[in-house]
């Protein structure tokens, strides 16, 4: 699923070339920025330009706030796209790249075939293409969430890792799903691929009828992430666990596993969720036999149980 549109600037977001004179933002692009933003799809910039002049122009035209990541430099666009995908923790196949220059698009197609490229003249098609259907409160706030994340990264630059994590004040709350959580649960289930233990697709009815669904939310001193995890625990077996990839890299998945795990947990290899196998095995769970349906039960072994990292407080 495409989650981020990366825009060229000259003759794409705006008409004209900045270094040759004044530019005018395209009204059709403004409408797309706003509409997709409301749907939880974020925007970023990859522009070959002079950075200070470009930043000033973005602010002058009230464009700056729409973008969660910027690469304004003279490097090749594929390098900048890769670096944005790492910063936002999105896979390359979650990216769309818009540029008026056929050479730039071809270069991206060649170097990063997973990225979808769109001619700047054809951007109106993005409105139909990028429509996730389900739009949760988290989705509408996604741009803010990414911008808070950028503040966290800046804070991380000045401290040691452990001190930084300790100082983040991370708190996870785990509670049973309520009716108002259904949209977000469906969205997490459909958007989460890397940190998803089975990849099972649930219909709305199945979610509503499924007993024992737990939802987890995360906040820290920088802000509130909202609901970031879904777990289903039935008769001692953790049959489903999905965690937003936005919160990777800080021990959240280990904290959640330690909290919701009873005796065993289910895994089904989906081709994209090896991180969950790593999580189970590195947490000391012991793999059972691979079943004909591709599932595998991991049981709590004789060693220590998984523990919540010291820098995370869990309310359950």
């Amino acid at each position, binding site marked *: 699923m495409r989650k981020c549109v990366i825009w060229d600037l000259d003759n794409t977001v705006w008409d004209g070339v900045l270094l040759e004179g004044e530019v005018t933002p395209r009204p059709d692009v403004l409408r797309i920025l706003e509409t997709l933003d409301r749907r939880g799809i974020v925007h970023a910039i990859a522009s070959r330009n002079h950075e200070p002049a470009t930043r000033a122009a973005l602010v002058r035209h009230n464009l700056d706030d729409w973008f969660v990541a910027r690469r304004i430099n003279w490097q090749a666009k594929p390098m900048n796209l890769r670096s944005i995908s790492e910063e936002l923790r999105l896979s390359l196949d979650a990216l769309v790249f818009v540029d008026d220059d056929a050479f730039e698009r071809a270069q991206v197609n060649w170097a990063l075939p997973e990225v979808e490229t769109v001619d700047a003249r054809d951007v109106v098609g993005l409105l139909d293409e990028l429509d996730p259907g389900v739009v949760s409160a988290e989705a509408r706030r996604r741009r803010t969430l990414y911008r808070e994340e950028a503040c966290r990264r800046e804070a*991380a*630059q*000045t*401290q*040691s*890792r*452990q001190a*930084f*994590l300790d100082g983040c004040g991370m708190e996870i709350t785990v509670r049973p799903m309520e009716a108002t959580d259904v949209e977000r649960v469906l969205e997490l289930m459909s958007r989460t691929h*890397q*940190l998803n233990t089975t990849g099972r697709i649930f219909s709305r009815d199945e979610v509503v009828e499924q007993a024992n669904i737990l939802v987890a939310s995360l906040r820290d001193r920088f802000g509130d992430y909202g609901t970031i995890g879904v777990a289903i625990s039935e008769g001692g077996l953790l049959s489903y666990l999905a965690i937003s*990839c936005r919160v*990777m*890299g*800080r*021990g*959240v*998945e*280990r904290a959640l596993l330690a909290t919701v795990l009873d005796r065993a947990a289910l895994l089904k290899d989906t081709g994209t969720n*090896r*991180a*969950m*196998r*790593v*999580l189970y*095995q*590195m947490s*000391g769970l012991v*793999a059972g036999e691979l079943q004909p349906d591709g599932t595998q039960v991991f049981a709590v072994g004789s060693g220590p149980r998984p523990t919540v*990292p*010291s*820098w995370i407080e869990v309310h359950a």
Partner: protein
Amino acid sequence: MNHADQVSRAVHGHLMANYLPSGTAPLVGDDNLFDAGVLDSAGLLSLLAWIEEEFELDIPDDHLVPDNFSSITRTTSYICARRAELEESRCANA
């Protein structure tokens, strides 16, 4: 300098350069990388990809256990042992 020292220094350098902001206190070989917040499951996945390429070996799923990867010391021992194992099977096949 023996081979294990070279492997250990390479792993240490890679972690410092790619997993920690500059200026962070150096890691110690026996530190638990997960408890120290250096690695999580996704972080270990990218470390595995680097090890496989850098040391020309493959890491089967059932080797992904704390004994093999929870610290720089353990990771180093694993890499050396796995390389030796693959060397042997190559010789046996030759």
